[in-house]
């Protein structure tokens, strides 16, 4: 089964990438964009989707600093 795992920095953790993007936007004419946070997307195919949460917690994310969502196709 195909799945997507969305990983994002936990709320409250400073995300300097998001900040840098946010600062760059007005100079490109994009005003009114705020709270930019940068995460990552992992696409995969799993025989046993029930084990995806375990996979996320053991490897794909560091639960101390990141949250994740699993989206099954």
């Amino acid at each position, binding site marked *: 089964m195909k799945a997507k795992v969305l990983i994002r920095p936990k709320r409250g*953790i*400073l995300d*300097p*990438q998001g900040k*840098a993007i946010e600062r760059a936007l007005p100079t490109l004419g994009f005003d009114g964009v705020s709270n930019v946070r940068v995460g990552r997307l992992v696409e995969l195919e799993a025989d046993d989707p029930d084990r995806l949460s375990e996979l996320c917690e053991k*490897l*794909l994310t*560091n639960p*101390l*600093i990141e949250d994740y969502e699993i989206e099954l196709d």
Partner: protein
Amino acid sequence: MFGVIQFPGSCDERDALLACRRVGEARLVWHQDTDLGDVDVVVVPGGFSYGDYLRAGALARFSPAMEAVAEHAAAGKPVLGICNGFQVLCEAGLLPGALLPNESLRFVCRQVELVVESSETPFTQGCRPGQRLSIPVKHESGRYYAPAEQLDELEARGGVVLRYGAGQNPNGSAREIAAVVNEGGNVMGLMPHPEHAVDPLTESTDGLRIFASLAAPAARSASATLSG
């Protein structure tokens, strides 16, 4: 015997090996070795293990040698993680917290001043509390982070071993933390590179104090007592 772990992508293992050899015997341990044999002090060196893919240190923790390192740590024997080694030990759950990308998003490479917070560890027993050490940093993900309550707990038990001096924090680390030790007191991680400050050629030899502390008989007997 010091054992310096060598992962694919390690780049400071030779310097760490040479630093250890200034104070004792040392050898490299290949990442696929599962038996540490004669090693009584483990050094997890700096570099870019497994290309820093996913998150720095995330993949190295699954290498076969890390199982042996976890057993070594559980037996109360000393484990020192430097830079990427610190990241690996955090990812492996042997140390609290995590290392995030630097606040500046830039790779920093410079000499920093550190303050010794605790000399009650096998890693700093040759230092005085409050002593200043000049040691270089070179990293892109060195911002120490842990939730506030975990930081309070860490400070309360004397788990912060080194802090960046005033105005020296190179990465935005919480509470200027540069080095932490686990509850057992036998696993330490630090972002600065003591192995790059052992020769007068590079001006400071302060890093040698860390290796000399580990080589001192008390470090070994402390770990022997802990391991019972």
